[in-house]
């Protein structure tokens, strides 16, 4: 019953091509679209310098995590903490040392929100979009930051200074709307206050 109504309602529009519930051709289209997206994403990746691998640090991280693939997520977090993202060269090193396939690391790195495969800015701004922040106008804060930095959510400024991300909840719900810049939290914001905070970081030399 659902399926018939669905088809009549949505199958004609391209925007709803992701509807694979019933439509096989829709599924094929979706897969093609998605893979094209991925290809463009790889092509469009900014050409950055190849990160020098700090083997001393990496060995230390691996040692702390007992070189156990079970601790993969924490290993990736530590790499992320140093490089701000997961550089390909570094992941290759981890593959060798942990003796696991790259696909395993790739699946974890793309599943969890904490990881990024592209370089991120010196300052990572996280706009909390938790419910408490949402009902107090977090979207407006996000919009004003996007405008100010001229980037969208998930993007990094060209000078690699700022990355704008959103987070599902920072657990400072009483002070919403909240943003964090790296590990510093700022609460009780409105547009003006949010811009002021970013200005501090912009002015810093």
């Amino acid at each position, binding site marked *: 019953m*659902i399926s018939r109504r669905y088809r009549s309602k949505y199958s004609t529009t391209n925007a709803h091509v992701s509807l694979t*519930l019933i439509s096989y051709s829709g599924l094929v289209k979706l897969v093609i679209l998605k893979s094209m997206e991925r290809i463009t994403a790889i092509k469009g990746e900014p050409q950055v310098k190849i990160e020098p691998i700090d083997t001393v640090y990496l060995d230390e991280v691996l040692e702390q995590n007992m070189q156990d693939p079970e601790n*993969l*997520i924490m290993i990736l977090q530590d790499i992320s903490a140093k490089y701000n993202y997961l550089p390909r060269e570094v992941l290759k090193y981890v593959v060798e040392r942990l003796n696991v396939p790259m696909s*395993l690391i790739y699946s974890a790195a793309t599943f969890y929100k904490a990881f990024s495969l592209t370089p991120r800015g010196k300052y990572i701004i996280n706009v909390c979009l938790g*419910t*408490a922040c949402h009902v107090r106008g977090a979207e407006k804060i996000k919009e004003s930051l996007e405008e100010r930095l001229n980037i969208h959510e998930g993007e990094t400024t060209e000078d690699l200074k700022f990355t704008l991300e959103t987070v599902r909840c920072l657990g*400072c719900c009483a*002070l*919403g709307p909240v943003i964090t810049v790296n590990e510093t939290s700022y609460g009780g914001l409105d547009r003006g206050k949010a811009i002021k905070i970013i200005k501090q970081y912009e002015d810093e030399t």
Partner: protein
Amino acid sequence: MSKLQSQKNYEVLREQFKKERDPERRVVSLCAGSGCGAYGTQEVRRALEQEVLKNGLKGKVEIKVTGCHGFCEQGPIMVIYPEGIFYPKVKPEDIPEIVAKTIVNGEVIENKLYKDPLSKKRILKEKDVPFYRQQLRIVFGNNGLIDPTNIDDYISMDGYSALVKALFTMSPEEVILAIKESGLRGRGGGGFPTGIKWETCRKAHGDIRYVMCNADEGDPGAYMDRSLLEGNSHSVLEGMIIGAYAIGSNQGFVYVRNEYPLAVKNLGIGIKQAEEYGLLGKNILGSGFDFTVKISRGGGAFVCGESTALMRSLEGKVGRPRAKYIHTVDKGYRESPSALNNVETWANVPIIINNGPEWYASLGTEKSKGTKVFSLVGKVRNTGLVEVPMGTSLRTIIYDIGGGIPKKKKFKAVQTGGPSGGCIPEDFLDLPVDYERLAEVGSIMGSGGMIVMDQDNCMVDLARYFVDFLKNESCGQCTPCREGITQMSEILTDICEGNGKEGDIELLEELATMIKRFSLCGLGKTAPNSVLTTLLYFREEYQAHIRDKKCPAGVCKALFHYEVDEELCNGCHLCALKCPQEAVTGEKKKPHHIDQDKCIKCSICYEACKFDAILIK
């Protein structure tokens, strides 16, 4: 410090710590929870330390940096003992006066005390503030009294005495029986009886058993687990050790969000100190029982709060849930019996062992025992963490403790249980909050998030927000959840953008039923709740969006515009000054006008107007 070898060793040490902590000594307790931290606790702390040094008070005054006191709205919070003088919203520039008057002379600075917004009276002590007065803080109460990085503080408050009692006077079966009799149920959302979970795990087939603490607090709007781990991690560890003893486990894990760096840090310190005292590790207190705890930091995926997904994530894999034909208490982490409980559940365990199951069972309602910590946030005056006995009414929580809705706005709904929960309208404000009653009105307890909404919140937008959230957080392995939620999101977005069609409401209901019935895990099964409850209680708002193309709350930008009420507008010009688009024009002292072509509906004028002259049309 050498390890404690016996019950006697522990008791001697505890008495020593109690003696060292003279109740009459001068202690300044400063809240450094995440809330107060964001308001600037560290600056206040530095100013205080300098001032104490300058006045030659070093050694005479103890500065205790504690975890969350709960009243986050008023941060940074300072309480000065032995009098218990409560100073909210302390700024570094207040410190010299506070040191000179209160700390040195015990003199109260009247204008720095908390002012009750209703009675306009100044209130001296923390416990007399209306926000705290109606709470029963058995789990959360010690947060403001102990330094979370100092185990001695916790032991001096009888910490780890429940562990001693369990290890030396109770058999594992007796511990399980006590938990069963107490009626404790899972505080993470499901509400499964904890004692039964432990018993099943103990009896499950297998050589190695695991206990786990779920601190992947994913529900947006809930942060009690964070505050407990930051402020009193030992209470959680003590609960886990007792649980491990009861179940017969020697290895525990705490799965904590990496977005909570302070919780990770304080928990790490807690584990290290407990190990140094011999309260964790091999042969705990000479009892022959071994138990170690490891911290695992999550990668930021909401679905990892689900038990099977969490255990896969612990194994270093992608956190996708599996069907629960076999429960995790039989086969969980590494295919071994695993007992997973929420942070708050674990923190309840020592309290039950210390006070007895009968005492605990006397709190709460028939089927929901004890207390529950709620995070009271959103459009409410006193935001913060609130601990009340189960069965307390929503009205008491929101109006008596929360102080009602600010800015003279009208209450619209309260959302409980996070993205899986539902919205409860005004008609049910007298509902006693427990697992069953919340389920009756279509919502859930969840982990205890309570988000209050007023007339300016659009319920269709809220439903869209939750569905969008779940669309992004769905792990993607089962079709009803992955595709069904995506479709719901698209329909709701259409409605919010003014493209809603007749029949959309029915389609949403049909989709919701399908997703609920066929999804693999709890995320999908509960995903449509926010849509279903808003449809049930606020259907007319959906209809206004679809038929009249209007958003009555003024949130969905395509469906409203601002107008100036010429009678109410006195031409104060404030809105015109604030408008970033220069869309508001008018001469001073004459009614203003909004140019609809320029207006971006940013709501700055609406919020700025003190005369309610800007109308949503």
